[in-house]
Structures are given as C-alpha cells and as structure tokens.
C-alpha cells in the first residue's frame, strides 16, 4: 500500500507513551487532587500559581462547588450538605456509573455515565421541557431533570433512584 511521506512522521510523533504513575492513584481514589506532571520553569510555576489564584477566586465568586465520587452515599451526603436537598440515589444503580456532583447558583447536577456515555441529573427550581433524551418531574418542591445521550440511556438512568 502506498504511504504518504508524512505518515511515518505521524506514526513517530503520535506514538504511544507511558501513562504517569499517579494515574492509578487517581483511579483508585477519584478525589485525589490532580498534580501536574510537567517540569515547569520557575516563571511558568509563578504564572501557574497566579492563574490558579485567579481561577479559584472566579470559582468562589460564581459559587461553583464540585465533588467527584462514584459512591452514591457520598454524593447524596454531599448534595444534602451543600444544597439541603436529599436526592434518593440508590447505593448501586444498575447500569449507571456515578461520577460526582456540582452545586452552582442553587442548582445541583449529578454526573453519571451509562455505557460510557455521559448524562446528568439536575435538581433545581426551574422547569425544563421533556423530550426523548430529557425527562423532567417535580418532587418535594424541587424540579428534577434527567438528561442522557440517548433515549435508551434515559430508561437505564432511572435506576439512579428506582429499582428496575
């Protein structure tokens, strides 16, 4: 088969690399704070530190709070502590992998995946229209919005709080 001149360049420059050792720690304990693996100069470190301070300030200013966990109990407790809403998540929702939660501007978002595709459960006071991929309902004075990549995922995502 004919090969273009740049194909060996691509194969060489895009070659597989070794994963950093800290990856296992991040998988084993998803809440571990990310460390940068790049050797930076002193100036780059200073710029990075300044940027971090600015980002943290912006983050605090807009009121975003996030939590990463795959554990339903931890997420439920965190959401209750942050937003005062008790979302009745099941301990082991079949076919659904919990990823974490966010709380911003009075709205809670619980992130999950179904078959490797991302979805989210939003709980707030706003009403969002339902569609084949989005389902909205009200409970205990809160509006729940379940959003998935496909209509089939939506059915599985119901397992977050319900059996079967």
């Amino acid at each position, binding site marked *: 088969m004919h090969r*273009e*001149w*740049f*194909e*060996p*360049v*691509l*194969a*060489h*420059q*895009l*070659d*597989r*690399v*070794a*994963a*950093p050792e*800290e*990856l*296992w720690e*991040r*998988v084993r304990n*998803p809440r571990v704070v*990310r460390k*940068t*693996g*790049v*050797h*930076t*100069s002193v100036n*780059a470190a200073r710029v990075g530190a300044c940027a971090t301070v600015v980002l943290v300030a912006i983050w605090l200013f807009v009121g975003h709070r996030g939590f990463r966990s*795959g554990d339903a109990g931890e997420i439920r407790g965190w959401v209750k502590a942050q937003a005062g809403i008790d979302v009745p998540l099941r301990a082991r929702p079949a*076919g*659904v*992998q*919990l*990823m974490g939660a966010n709380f911003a501007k009075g709205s809670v978002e619980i992130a999950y*995946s179904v*078959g*490797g*595709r*991302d979805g989210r459960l939003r709980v707030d006071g706003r009403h969002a229209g339902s569609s084949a991929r989005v389902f909205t309902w009200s409970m205990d004075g809160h509006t729940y919005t379940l959003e998935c990549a496909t209509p089939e995922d939506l059915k599985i995502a119901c397992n977050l709080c319900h059996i079967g």
Partner: protein
Amino acid sequence: MLDSNDREVIEACQRGDSDAFRVLFEAHKDRVYSIALRYSGDPAAAMDIAQESFLKVLGAIPEFRAEAGFESWLYRIVVNTCLDYQRRGRRMMPCLGELIEAVSAHSETVLHRLMRAEVQDDVQRIVARLSPEQRMVVVLRYTEGLAYDEIARILGCSAGTVASRLNRAHKILERRLSHLRGAVGNA
C-alpha cells in the same frame, strides 16, 4: 475475542475483585492515556480523560459480555470520554511539555532537544486543529495502528467513512506539515 487469561481477569473484575481490576488497568493504562494525550494534546487533560475512562470501565464492566471484544469496548469508552470532555469545553491545547523541558535543560543537547520538541509540538498542534472526528481517526490510526474496519467498529460508522475522514485529514496534514518535509528526510 478474549483469550482465557483475559476472560478470567474480566470475570474476576465483574465479581468486584480489585486486584483483577489493577491487572486490567496495568495492561491497558498506556493505551488509554496515549489516546487521551494524542487527542487532547494536553497532559493534564489526558490524565482527566484517562481517569474518567477507567472509572467508566469499573462501573460498566458488570454489563460487559465476553463475546464482545474487550479492546473494542475499551476503545469506545475512551473515544466517548475524549469527545465528551471536549464537548464540556474543558481545556485542550497543544502539548508544550517537551518544549518547556528543553528550554529549561542545561546541557549540550539543548538545541537538539529543542528541535525535536519543536517538531513534536508542530505535529501535535496541527493534529489538534483537525475536526474532532478527523482527529480521532488519526489518533486511532497512528497512535494505535488500527485497521480501517477496527476504527469503524469503534466509532460506529462504516469503513468508507473512516477512509474518507482519514483522506481529508491527510490532505490537511500534508499541507500543514509541508515545512517538515525536508527536515524529516526519509524518516
């Protein structure tokens, strides 16, 4: 198809055996991280994507069926995580790590390292400017060395679509990498 060792490890993972998951992780970590790095062009983003991919594997492995190819299943998870990460607007930018490292090095090989880093940075930056669909095909083809029909299975499209995306990507890359033609010689 799975060989008997892989099958045993996956079945143990499905029973919740954490040692088996570590074995699975060790076997596939470089593959997962490399796709994430070559797609995102950013080591920090690659770590996020790789972490999220393995968490998805951990969560979804009870539903994995042995008759399906594990590697294709894993590739699909990584590909979807890369695309989701970009859709969520997370940081993706060319990899500058080697360039910074070369600049901060104090040895006789600084110039050589700088040139090497520059070529890699060029390639990574140019690949990063491809559309997400074209970039993913390029990564699966050149980082993983996959055949068109394998890429098609992972992306859920036809081999013809893969060939077409790769062809369009080749034309763009050939034009944008033309300044390297003399530099790389018969590489």
